[in-house]
């Protein structure tokens, strides 16, 4: 039982990381129907920036964390304006190819700037545990979970209660109608890229202490995030977060209680889940089947 709760927390902590990156994918997908394959590398790149701030510029972890969120936001907005917006009239496939190009460019650029070598990334949380009723609660896991959920909550409050957030939702549902009401939708799309980059940066900075810093660090995480987003339904922001948490817990539980499933099988299992969801329930847990009138 104690092991169960420990694994649950560890799964939730992993899942929060998958969920925040999945939410980043969903934000962009919902507004433009484009899967941003560069989302993981964007997260990796901004995580390197935070690392550089901490190790070379004397920032404390939390100073670097918030500075990086701001940098990530501006970086996301700039990417949309410079790279994606000129492709506005191009097909979705063209834009997807552009994001794949960004993936490769960012990956190479990170290796070139910071070397491809594995780097130690500091954790803001102590490695110790609290013991509550015989259950060891990892401060690292709890902290990771808390930070991600706090960021997601702030974003949710923004979308739910601010005029700009409302306009972003309206623009995602019906951009034409939003423009007729005076909304400058292209700027809202750039804002969406900014928020997605921020979520990616959060997931990168939270996962880096446990998987170390390398230019390839986010590639597996991005695949988990894909699986989480598909599980929750690509159209559903709530689904992305719940999908991420569910996937994290499921993978940890399978690893703990089903003995043939070793760490090597984690990624294949995640992809198997992705395939099963696509075959059985393509709209995901929270998605709706969209019927388009032709």
């Amino acid at each position, binding site marked *: 039982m104690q092991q169960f709760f420990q694994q649950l927390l560890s799964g939730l902590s992993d899942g929060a990381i998958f969920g925040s990156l999945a939410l980043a994918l969903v934000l962009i997908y919902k507004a433009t129907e484009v899967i941003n394959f560069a989302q993981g590398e964007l997260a990796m790149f901004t995580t390197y920036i935070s690392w550089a701030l901490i190790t070379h510029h004397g920032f404390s972890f939390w100073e670097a964390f918030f500075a990086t969120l701001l940098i990530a936001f501006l970086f996301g907005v700039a990417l949309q304006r410079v790279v994606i917006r000129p492709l506005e009239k191009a097909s979705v496939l063209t834009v997807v190819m552009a994001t794949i190009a960004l993936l490769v460019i960012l990956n190479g650029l990170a290796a070139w700037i910071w070397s491809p070598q594995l780097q130690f990334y500091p954790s803001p949380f102590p490695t110790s545990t609290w013991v509550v009723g015989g259950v060891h609660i990892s401060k690292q896991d709890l902290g990771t979970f808390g930070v991600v959920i706090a960021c997601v909550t702030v974003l949710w409050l923004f979308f739910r209660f601010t005029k700009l957030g409302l306009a972003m939702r309206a623009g995602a*549902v019906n951009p034409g109608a939003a423009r007729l*009401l005076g909304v400058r939708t292209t700027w809202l799309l750039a804002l969406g890229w900014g928020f997605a980059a921020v979520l990616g940066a959060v997931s990168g900075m939270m996962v880096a202490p446990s998987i170390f810093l390398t230019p390839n660090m986010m590639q597996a995480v991005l695949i988990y995030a894909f699986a989480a987003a598909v599980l929750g339904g690509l159209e559903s922001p709530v689904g992305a977060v719940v999908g991420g948490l569910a996937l994290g817990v499921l993978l940890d539980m399978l690893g703990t209680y089903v003995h043939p499933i070793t760490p090597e099988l984690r990624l294949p299992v995640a992809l198997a889940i992705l395939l099963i969801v696509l075959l059985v329930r393509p709209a995901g847990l929270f998605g709706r089947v969209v019927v388009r009138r032709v």
Partner: protein
Amino acid sequence: MSALLELSDVSARYGQVQALHGVSLSVAEGEIVALLGANGAGKTTTLRAVSGTVRRTGEIVFAGKRLRGAPEAVARAGVAHVPEGRGIFAELTVWENLRMGAYLRRGRPDFSAVLAYFPWLESRRHQQAGTLSGGEQQMLALARAFLLRPKLLMLDEPSLGLAPLVTREVFRVVGDLNAKEGLAVLVVEQNAAIALQSAGRAYVLETGVVAVEGSSSELKANDAVRSAYLGP
């Protein structure tokens, strides 16, 4: 009477297909003008040319200024366009749709003026707009457009898919907004009979040009218009 909206020799095309071949028309302040014509005559394209949702040539002057550019700029200039299919945000609530209507206004939106015309919206505020009936969606689209505080309201086929009684109700509200708020209206309609009842003047489009224009009473008496659009 000075023209609020004036189109001079406006043409537009969709790819290879030319939809408008030099349309000229005007709407005066406080006036209701109907735009009639068969399917594909260019009625919708004319509205889209004004709101900037289709590329066009020719000159469009609104409230003394040349209109150019993107739909968001035209909306800011004071033109509310309720497009074909009403353009409501189906996934958002009724209230959120209204808040979007007031997007360009600063501060907390005041819905009291709009609720005077659409009192039932208050009790449906939390309902998802996509679950409203067709007539209710049309009313919501009208209410939302009114919140823009436009000088000109452009309606594209408000009667589409509505029962005759509901259509009459929609036109009654449009007439009210025109009479009490001085709102100028340019309305595209297939249902010429009901449009000519509300409108003071009308234009009949045929294959992208203005074929006939005149006051509603003149058009009702015009034999060609009668046989083509009003029935015997």
